[in-house]
């Protein structure tokens, strides 16, 4: 699985992990160190290509949400929502009121589930020194069990609204096939109350973890909305001053196809790699968190921004707390809408959708004709944007630790990748390359 070798003894070494574990999808790590300096650091992605953008052409515009959902089983809601928003923007439709609130609720479910999975099952074992959550459960049963219970709550929200946790079936352009009944949502209130308490307890535990001393001055990028912490809507902003409507996404970020990776990588036009996801959202929207969630973050030792990617585990936990808070608010204010959806009739044009997937901005652009046939589309997953920043992290991080024993260095570098919860399965662009063997 992993190996290291020295070609010139004492001078140069290569650290490799052929199949990264505890990430979604398939990727590998490649690190070349010469004379104590990192010469090359790569997160290689070799998911087979699935060609979503190609076979969406010719499909009906109403099919885009369900089809793009199949890009990723971990964040289907992100794809469903970005596709819906993009199509609605082409057709001049705005979804408001309770239907909009229900979409936020659905997204809260995905954040709780996906972040919960990452915090307790994929990331925490790194800090506690276990191979996986099952092994960790033997030493810390209450933490893992309650983490699973939290994750299950996220799934319960998605199931109540969407019918099932992976690839929910109840979402369509304009809203839902059937709006949930009051009592179906009320049934979630007890668990949400429990989760509110547990998120505070979990943060108190997690802040005691030992975090490597590592900070970087990232350009954070994400959505920003005038009145809420962003889920479904907002402008595309960055800590370096970008502030554009999402229809300008393609002018802000450019994709390059690099040979070592099977995904297209993004860079900011006129800038470098950008960092998306929980740490970016938090830094850009800290002021939009409700006071009690801000207090939780402070209690966990977080300032208004966090620049240590290893502490993303804390930021994710803060975002879970926010999602729990927001879900409870939406359910408390819920009134069954008159109709489960508003009509969306096709009209020719191009539309844009960008929403905050657990790992960062999920962007989709579609052009459709008068009959609603898709003639062109583009999909960018947050992990393909983060890939460049992950490689930079690896270079800087490993550079300062080149003298560590290989085994330890490899473990810590894997962890540096997992900090981003990379979702390699978001493989709309990904293809198979022969992995270069060194």
């Amino acid at each position, binding site marked *: *699985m992993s190996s290291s070798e020295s070609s010139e003894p004492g001078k140069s070494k290569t650290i490799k992990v052929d199949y990264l*574990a*505890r*990430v979604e*999808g*398939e990727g590998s790590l490649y690190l070349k160190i010469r004379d104590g300096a990192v010469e090359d650091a790569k997160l290689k992605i070799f998911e*087979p*290509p*699935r*060609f*979503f*953008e*190609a*076979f969406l*052409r010719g*499909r*009906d515009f109403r*099919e885009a949400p*369900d*089809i793009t959902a*199949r*890009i*990723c*089983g*971990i964040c289907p809601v992100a794809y469903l929502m970005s596709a819906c928003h993009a199509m609605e923007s082409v057709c001049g439709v705005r979804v408001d009121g309770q239907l909009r609130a229900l979409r936020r609720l659905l997204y809260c479910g995905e954040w709780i589930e996906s972040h919960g*999975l990452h915090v307790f099952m*994929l990331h925490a074992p790194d800090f506690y020194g276990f*191979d*996986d*959550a*099952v*092994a960790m*459960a033997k030493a810390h049963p209450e933490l893992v*069990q309650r983490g*699973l*219970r939290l*994750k*299950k709550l996220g*799934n319960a929200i998605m199931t109540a609204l969407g*019918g*099932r946790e*992976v*690839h929910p*079936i*109840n979402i369509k352009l304009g809203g839902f*096939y*059937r709006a949930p009944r009051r009592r179906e949502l009320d049934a979630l209130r007890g668990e949400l109350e429990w989760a509110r308490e547990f998120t505070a307890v979990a943060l108190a535990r997690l802040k005691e973890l030992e975090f490597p001393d590592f900070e970087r001055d990232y350009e954070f990028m994400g959505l920003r909305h005038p009145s809420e912490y962003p889920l479904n809507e907002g402008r595309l902003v960055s800590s370096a001053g970008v502030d554009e409507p999402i229809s300008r996404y393609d002018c802000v970020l450019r*994709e390059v*196809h690099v040979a070592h990776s*099977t995904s*297209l990588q993004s860079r900011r036009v006129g800038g470098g790699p950008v960092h998306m996801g929980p740490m970016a959202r938090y830094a850009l929207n800290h002021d939009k968190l409700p006071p009690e969630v801000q207090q939780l973050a402070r209690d966990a030792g977080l300032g208004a921004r966090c620049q240590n990617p290893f502490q993303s585990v804390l930021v994710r936990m803060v975002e879970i707390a926010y999602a729990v808070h927001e879900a409870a608010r939406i359910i408390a204010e819920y009134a069954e809408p008159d109709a*489960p959806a508003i009509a969306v009739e096709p009209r020719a044009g191009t539309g844009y959708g960008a929403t905050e997937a657990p790992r960062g901005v999920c962007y989709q652009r579609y052009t459709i004709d008068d009959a609603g046939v898709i003639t062109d589309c583009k999909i960018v997953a947050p992990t393909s944007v983060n890939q460049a920043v992950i490689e930079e992290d690896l270079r800087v991080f490993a550079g300062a630790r080149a003298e560590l024993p290989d085994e330890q260095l490899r473990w810590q570098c894997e962890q540096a990748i997992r900090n981003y919860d990379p979702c390699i*399965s978001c*493989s*709309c*662009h990904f*293809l*198979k*390359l*022969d992995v270069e063997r060194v």
Partner: protein
Amino acid sequence: MPRKPRLAVFKFASCDGCQLSLLDCEDELLALAGELEISHFLEASSAVQDGPYDLSLVEGSITTPHDAARIREVRRQSRALVTIGACATAGGIQALRNFRDVREFTRIVYARPDYIETLERSTAIADHVPVDFELRGCPINKAQLLEVLVSFLRRKRPNIPSHSVCVECKRRGIVCLMVARGTACLGPVTHAGCGALCPSFHRGCYGCFGPAESVNTPALAERLEQLGVDRGHRLRLFRSFNANAPEFREESERHEQ
């Protein structure tokens, strides 16, 4: 103490949703891990052990020459091999390439098509190696996944009915959408397993579980036409997540111009 059966999970071209269903068994996961040794499950664990494995769950379809070789190795290492989900059992949504020119697809998505290595068709695992059991769905139903795992532990055949979604509707007392509302629905020809999920949300079945046993797709297509579903729509209904399942494939081809 007898040795615990060794479980492995492998991924090919897929979205991870079906293997995630295993981690979504929040109530059962730790108990299961007590009865099985999870020997290879990259998404969940860094502890990776070599085969042979007693049971391998395989997600995803075969789309590259490398994967076509890898699945044969997985088969060699597995006493029992169960495929999970539409990708593994029918080629998945990525099998839409099978109806088009994959080189053109590559040019649409990638600036540098020369970096890409891919097969012309996305195919089911069973097209490459013998499979002991196929679990349907896009995604699979996690209760059915547990049934497969528990049956395996008890050395009996899993109880997974192969009738249509229609039967599930009748069992749940759901009023037929096609009769009552004239909604296009693939329920009559789709394999059971979801528990008639879409109809319970007033949505017509869209075929996640692929064809049921001995189905009459032309009869359904005719009924859809009577309901006013146009040719293109009929074609697309049969050509989605299970497009390459023979029954759906043939039906969709009947609606080509």
